[in-house]
């Protein structure tokens, strides 16, 4: 090379600069991610935890439990439903507007994604127990007792 395009920088230094730039960017991304994750991750609750240590209002969380028998009611608009999710220790009222999954029925397991508004859990999305082979994995997170109940109720 007759001309030196980088103003006197030796190849070795250029490589060093590249490595430093890449490291700074990656570490920056990592720190940013860690900070955002600690604020934005949505936690999984069962009704007992939710009642014991309520999360802050409006924060995205998930709630898993059993849809209580006889609690499911449809409002007059035909698309908003109210039901109660329980785990044998506590009960949480849930409101959901939308089309329910095919296997969403009373006395069966459900995982709801949403947030607390007042004492009510407002769900954006419901994941129901599908069939024997395709269980939402959160169902696996229930205590053996709850799982036994789910099996007993659905058989």
């Amino acid at each position, binding site marked *: 090379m007759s001309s030196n395009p980088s103003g006197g920088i030796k190849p070795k230094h*250029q490589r060093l600069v590249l490595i430093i*730039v890449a490291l700074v960017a990656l570490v920056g*991304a*990592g720190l940013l991610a860690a900070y955002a994750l600690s604020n934005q991750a949505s936690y999984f609750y069962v009704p007992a935890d939710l009642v014991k240590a309520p999360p802050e209002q409006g924060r995205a969380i998930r709630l898993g439990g059993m849809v209580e028998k006889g609690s499911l009611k449809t409002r007059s608009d*035909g698309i908003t439903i109210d039901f109660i999710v329980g785990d044998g220790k506590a009960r949480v009222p849930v409101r959901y507007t939308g089309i329910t999954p095919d296997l969403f029925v009373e006395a069966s397991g459900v995982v709801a994604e949403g947030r607390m508004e007042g004492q009510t859990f407002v769900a954006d999305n419901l994941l129901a127990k599908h069939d024997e082979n395709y269980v939402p994995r959160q169902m696996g997170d229930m205590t053996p007792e709850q799982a036994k109940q789910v099996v007993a109720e659905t058989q």
Partner: protein
Amino acid sequence: MIAEIGLAVLWMAAALAVLQLFAGFSALRPGGKALAGVVRPLAVMQGVLVAISFLALIDLFLETDLSVKLVAANSHSMKPFIFKLAGTWGNHEGSMLLWITIMAVSGGVVALVEKRLREDTLIATLAGQAFVSLGFYAFLLLSSNPFERLPEPAPEGQGLNPLLQDIGLAFHPPTLYVGYVGLSVAFSFAIGALITRDVGPAFARAMRPWVLGAWIFLTVGITAGSYWAYYTLGWGGWWFWDPVENASLMPWLAATALLHSCSVLASRNALRAWTVMLGVIAFSMSMVGTFLVRSGILTSVHAFAVDPERGSFILALLAIYIGGALALFGIRASTVTEGERFSLFSREASLVFNNVMLCGILGIVLLGTLYPLMTEAFGAKVSVGPPYFNPVSAIFAIPMMLMMGVGPLLRWRKDKPSRITATVAIPALVVALVLLAVVLMFPSIRILPMLGIAVGAGLAVGSWLPLKGRNLRRTPFAVWGMVVAHCGLGVALLGAASESAFSTERLAAMNVGDTQSVGPIALKLEKIEPVAGPNWTAIEATVTASYKGGTPVTLHPQARTFTSPPGERTESALHTRWNGQLYAVLGNEGDDGRWQMRFWWKPFVPLLWLGGLLVAFGGLLALIGRVAQDVKRVRVNDKIAFRKTQQDMLK
């Protein structure tokens, strides 16, 4: 008999892979030249044998041979032909066989056609390829034999999960697999070049078509998968930042970075160690993706065939290959000599910038995807969704897309800012004007869609500027490819931002004869009636929709019930106009006899997938250009060699 042939041939292929590895190894040692000649034929034979084995499995599925365990568990004699075919790879064992088939066949193709690379580097590459495939052979033959027979043939097959009985999904996983495995070839090239200390332009040129090909398949796969999720799940969304989606996005991000650094290495002989490192990372991301999908370790709306034990096997392979490759890189990196220099204001520097941004996004997606696993170790169950991924990745994606408007205009090595200021002003003006217009006309939309619309429009326009001052007829295909792909990304971003900013939704319980509206569209529920298909029955709604009082069109959303195996699926109905898409879903019948209906009007959402296809098409143009160039170069070299021998003979 077919099953036994398939299994025997598969074992033979595995044996050949062992031979290929050892022959390659000894050929690289001093005095081992005798074995150098057998490595290429071995790779070709291995590819042929595995292909035969895969064809045997396809045949078993097409004939629905119920004495084979895999067929009985995943197929059904009444299934339509196309789903019998797709059933071959719609399960764990079959998809692993597909994986190894693609891997071995591409190894064979490398052995057949690659002539530019130094012979010892090629042998090292093929040995690396054999080493990688051996792990998968072990996996397939020892723990998930696809040809296993049942002691008693089953009376009838169990069928295929109804969600998977979809024409798009039948071809979606193999598309992604080709992409994943194509990156394994890039990985092997990187290993080969590291072993023989031959990291240079020839290596980059040999690797480039494979990276491009893999990248095209990944692009198509991701685009198709996103469209599948959009219309099958019935949730109106097109990207959920679900682990399985991230599993396909991460290799794509790494492959995109690799593709660009590979270009720098091929044409400018710079970024040597960086390119090798990206080659290792790209395939690692494919393996991480496969691990996440197959192990079921993370909750996903897309995951079906999951098994934790298989997950640990893939994890072990991941540790061996990636750990080994990184160790090799650590030992050899210092022997990779520095490449050519470039100034801070040059095309190389802009490509480095975007490479770093892509790696930043990759890191963010990877951390977000694995975070639930990390917290679970501490007893807290969390999930991470769009509120994390969208803004945090945008911090890196937006500067990257702005740079995409500048980088292609720059000269290699060194450039002057004054030369391009006038040209860059055009996309900059577009971004500013669109941003101003959006802020004034729709002040209520959120900041990310706003920026997305402005940057997307700027990129869609600015991507064409590298053609300025060129003779369009003589512009190489590769340049056209870049222009089209960059434009496609801008178009896709416009579609995504518009969907997020302007979508309107209507949820209602309707009686037959009721009317509703969503956005500019008037809707009427005409009737609800049962219909039947080959292996399903359904309730079908007939809805008429009229855009601003125009001629009505008819939509038929369905709720399907499948018989083999039993299951349900909503079949949404779409109506596409030039300026958006109407999306209709039929829900359940309420106690009062009204039907739940859900409608969306999504302005310009088809641009999203159109953009994705443009990106892939751009990649295809570049691939055609590169391959044609290579073929031409080989011909010219042959001619020169031929003339030389003639002249020698004359002397």
